[in-house]
């Protein structure tokens, strides 16, 4: 009996070793793919912001490298809600990724329920919360264009 148990565990061992390797290879491959895409499309992938828990705010799509979110009218994306500071948070595009950064807001900025303390990467479908306002972030795949640099 113990021999069979041992044999099964040996097989599990091999499976785990190769799971480690295959997963690492998969990540390597998808990293490579992302980088190729980024090289192909050096411009900024458009980002769409949509408030989900207030009816009056309309979704907006941006293709600029910096988006200021706040209550002030000077912000790129203005949310009229008293829990949002006038200059609340900033989305910026660098290193081929979108980052969110809290601008010392009163009620804080949260990404997927976690408080944003330092610049953090934003992924497609992430939930951003400024004060009491939930914002869904939608990232578009960069449009495919002939690459300009190698």
């Amino acid at each position, binding site marked *: 009996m113990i021999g069979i148990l041992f044999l099964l565990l*040996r097989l599990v061992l091999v499976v*785990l070793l190769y799971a480690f390797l295959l*997963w*690492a290879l998969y990540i*390597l491959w998808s990293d490579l793919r992302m980088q190729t895409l980024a090289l192909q499309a050096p411009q900024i992938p458009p980002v769409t912001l949509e408030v989900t828990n207030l009816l009056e705010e309309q979704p907006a799509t941006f293709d600029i490298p910096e988006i200021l979110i706040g209550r002030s009218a000077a912000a790129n994306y203005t949310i009229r809600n008293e829990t949002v500071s006038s200059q609340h948070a900033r989305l910026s595009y660098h290193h081929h990724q979108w980052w969110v950064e809290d601008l010392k807001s009163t009620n804080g900025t949260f990404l997927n*329920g*976690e408080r944003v303390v330092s610049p953090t990467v934003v992924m497609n479908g992430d939930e951003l919360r400024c004060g009491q306002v939930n914002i869904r972030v939608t990232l578009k795949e960069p449009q495919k264009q002939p690459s300009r640099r190698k």
Partner: protein
Amino acid sequence: MNRSAVPFPSPVERVQRRLLLLAGAFLLVYAILLTLAPAVKVRGESFPLEWKHWLGWVIWAIGFGTLHHFSRRLAFEADHFLLPLVAILSGWGILTIFRLDFTLGLRQSIWLVLGLILVALLVRQEGVLQFLRQYRVLWLVSGLVLTGLTLFFGTYPGGEGPRLWLGCCGIYFQPSEPLKLLLVVFLASYLAERPFLQKSLLRLVLPTLILLALALGLLLIQRDLGTATLFILIYTLTLYLATGEKKVLLLAGAALLIAGFAGTFFIDVVRYRVEAWLNPWADPSGRSYQIIQSLIAIASGAVLGSGPGAGFPFVVPVAASDFIFTAIAEETGLIGVIGLLLVYALFLVRGMRIALFAGKQYHRYLAAGIVAYFTSQIVLILAGNLRVLPLTGVTLPFLSYGGSSLLTSLLATGLLYSISRDNREEPAALHTVGAHLHLSFAGLALLGGLALVTGWWAVIRQETLTERVDNPRQYLYDRYVQRGSIVDRNGEVLVHSMGRPGEFQRAWVYPDLANTLGYNHPLYGRTGLEASMNSYLRGWQGVPSSLVWWNRLLYSQPPVGLDVRLTINLDIQQVADSLMGEHQGGLVVMNAESGEILALVSHPTFDPNRLGEIWQDLVVDPHAPLVNRAVQGQYPVGNALAPMVLLGSVNKSPLPEFPRELAESCTLPPENASWNAALRRGCPAALEFLLRAFFPSELDRLMRSLGFDRAYSLPIPVAAPQYRLADTPGQMMQLENWLQSSPLQMAVAAGVLSNQGMMTSPWLVQAVHTPHQGWVVINYPTSTGVVPASIARQAQQILSVPGQLYWQTVAVVGSEQKITWMIGGTTQEWEGAPVVIAGVLEEEDPQRARQWLAKLFEAILNSR
């Protein structure tokens, strides 16, 4: 995914965490297997479990968990593969070392903790790389000074050996390990400062060459040749990566070849290593012992390996450091080795990527140099283990036992990590794309090649290697799995294995038969029936092949061995042995009809139960107790040939009246002058009278028909008779000169008289006890007719002993050293199976020989 523990997860960090968890799970299962392995080895018959290595697992988990925690707060661009790759490698190493030796494992885990703390400090500090660069000469020189100190204060922690370590009180450090890293740092920062493309190469590298020569000089004096080779490789590869000049490679290759040749001729250590590499099979127990044991271990692992803890990797010397790869190959097999090499390949790829994306040239050279350092060290030691290159005593990074090595490897990884974190800028311009690509490709190709070589040893050469006599596992199996017993014809045990799995001991119940039974000893090899019947006794043969396969798969052991039954009758054997007592000689009792050997006596004999204590005396003993006199003894036959000659004579024509003149030369009293009396005592004159009628061609035919021109095949070593037909009648009369034979050979020939003119070949091993079919008879003997039954009857009557059921001839043979032959057999009147006896007493004592024959026949005839 539960993110509560992670305040701001980046994708990079998620990858690192998941890989670390997978590595942890792999090592967890590895540790569970190590715990169960002792119970598996004894097939669950008892339940010994091993717990000590869990300490290593816990230390590993806490160490890398904490390091992961630290690295999470670092900038986002840091490489997320490095930490998991290093984690799985060092965890694998720690568990393997714990499995081999608890003390070494404990030491290694202390070094691991120390190394991880250093790495944590290193990666938290910004500007470490700059700091290293600023004082590069200082670093390298202090490294050299430390290495130089080993010339005066060097020690070897394990006792006698190369004095490459510094330290005291249980803590030892090998300064040549960090020196490698310091060399890389120095080269990288030096080369990064020089726009070398325009200047001549020589002027560029001259200062570094001087330092390299200094380091090499030190290492050569210390005879640390593996590290010296590594230094040349690291230097060359880093230079090549920085300059892209192919002539650097050519020059270094030529230099290494010349150094290798010079070393082979002038330095003994190098010559031994090279000889052991070129032809290891020439000296398998001496200089090439390590490499051959390494290959055997890899072959024992085969494809699936024995499973962690279930193999015998400790039979390879220095398994924990130089040969840890072998230990891993044995226990996880080819499949584990390929996984291990893939982990190293990933490490190489990530390291090269870090180099390519580095923001500064200095960083790039440093990263590429570290990759070159790891790759050449991995390839050098693995190629040594696999007999692709001569052995060099370098360590396998992250895996091998060795504090300095582990610490240096971890520090190098820490540097790589810092470089990967620091590339906020765009990558620096790359001048030598080709060099980087070539080296990455070469590294990957070499690792792939090593996997193929492992496959060669583990699959294609597997059987040849594991069946070698110097594979100690063959003897270790006998301790874990019951070996078959050897029993006599009535099932009385002669030798068996006693104890329980893990502690089986071979016990010779009847040691007087040692010459026939033989022994199976890891130091002195295998002899006798233990050797010839090994495949049955060990269970490789006679067992259904599915059972062999299943046992191999589950336990990496052969199945329980089969019992072997001999034709020996222990009662008769005991009588014969007690008669022979302290006298020297050999004797065979045989059933003349079936060929079954009933007793096989050879004195002096030895006690195989005490082989280890008495071996030295046995091999120099002038009485040659290791020779089986009954079947290997070469005794001059002389007048003992009387029964056979008589048989031939009677077959040719009826015997004439006993000539009167012979009575005198045979010293027979006139009233007792008869063929019977003359031939029973082996009178030479009577024999000569009979022989003359035969010479020459008929004598040759007679000898051949009685089998004196060939040896019989028995499962123990048998000596062929020394038979050469004499040229003249005068020579023919000197019987001892043309025929020397063993008692066995004489017994078979004498059997013709007792077995109605038929001759039967001898039979010693009767049957093996298979699991499904019970006793299966093997080796049937064959019978041939030599003379008609009536002739045999006439001959035995001429030799018969009055009032007894047997005939006999006792003859003293030899001129200087006299021996006494005794030959006898049952006569027609005996109604049981016909029995013959042939023996030699190495003394001149016909009276005693007659007594022995009488007592033996009494025992034999009454036993039935």
